[in-house]
């Protein structure tokens, strides 16, 4: 159980940067009125960010990742349960990597 004092400035800086991202967007919205149009804009953001996470993974992925995504989509299509679909996808990736 050691804590090297020389790490503290970096740890503190990383903590601040991380919290600035978490709080910054919320804080900025104080100065912007939430109109129906802005609401529609923000409502589109979640789906878009998630596609922004999935797209690069799909493009860079090998066979296991592609199979994993397909399994996720199929499970979602069948059961409409996001968490079930998530673990079906992860399981498919694990099986593919094991077989490969």
């Amino acid at each position: 159980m050691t804590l090297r004092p020389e790490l503290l400035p970096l740890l503190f800086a990383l903590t601040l940067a991380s919290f600035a991202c978490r709080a910054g967007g919320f804080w900025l919205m104080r100065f912007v009125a939430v109109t129906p149009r802005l609401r529609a804009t923000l409502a589109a953001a979640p789906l878009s960010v998630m596609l922004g996470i999935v797209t690069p993974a799909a493009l860079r992925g090998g066979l296991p990742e592609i199979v994993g995504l397909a399994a996720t989509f199929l499970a979602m299509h069948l059961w409409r349960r996001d968490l079930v679909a998530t673990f079906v996808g992860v399981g498919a990736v694990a099986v593919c990597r094991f077989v490969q």
Partner: protein
Amino acid sequence: MRAVPIGVGVIVWGLTFGLMAREAGLSLLESSLMSTLVYSGTAQAATVGGLGAGVQAGAGILAGVATVLMLNARYLLYGASLRPWLGHATPAQAYATLYFLGDANWAMSTKAHADGENDAAFILGSGVSMFLPWVGGTVLGALAGNWIADPRMLGVDFLLVAFCAAMAMDLFKSRSDIAPAIAAVTVAALLDHFTPSGWTLVAAGVAGGLTAWLRYEEPA
């Protein structure tokens, strides 16, 4: 209760980071402190090497901060999207809730809100239920050392992608979602091809949001 299976996944994530931190030379206290304070899997994974090596002041700190800002810029969008809901809480409650903001709990909260959940405590509750397994997993990973030979074989790194794919299907509700989705995928594919970075998903979010903004039609 929906948080339980994902919480289990987060423990495995935390375990993975605990193992990485141990490899980088961090003590148990140092790695669990990092998970408690920075609380971001990708950002911690990217900066733990510098922390383990012992810091060169100045440049090392700046690079670390830039890395965290790039990887976590998506939280700006998350926080902004929570304003209409979380804005009803007191500032102290809101910022305390935001401290625990993470990908999974934000996605879960967004979904719950769309389904009619209006209690902002849901965001805090789901946030803490991700935070605790993250820190707990880190401790376990730092302790467990050699038990898990290769977390990749368990598909652990695919967890976030699969979760986001499932959530995206959930969030895709009407025809008005088509254009923003196409914009997001296009921008993400282009950016990832030419300048892959933590900004890709931020740009995708901005592209989708901007498309929705441009295509918004005032109700007659």
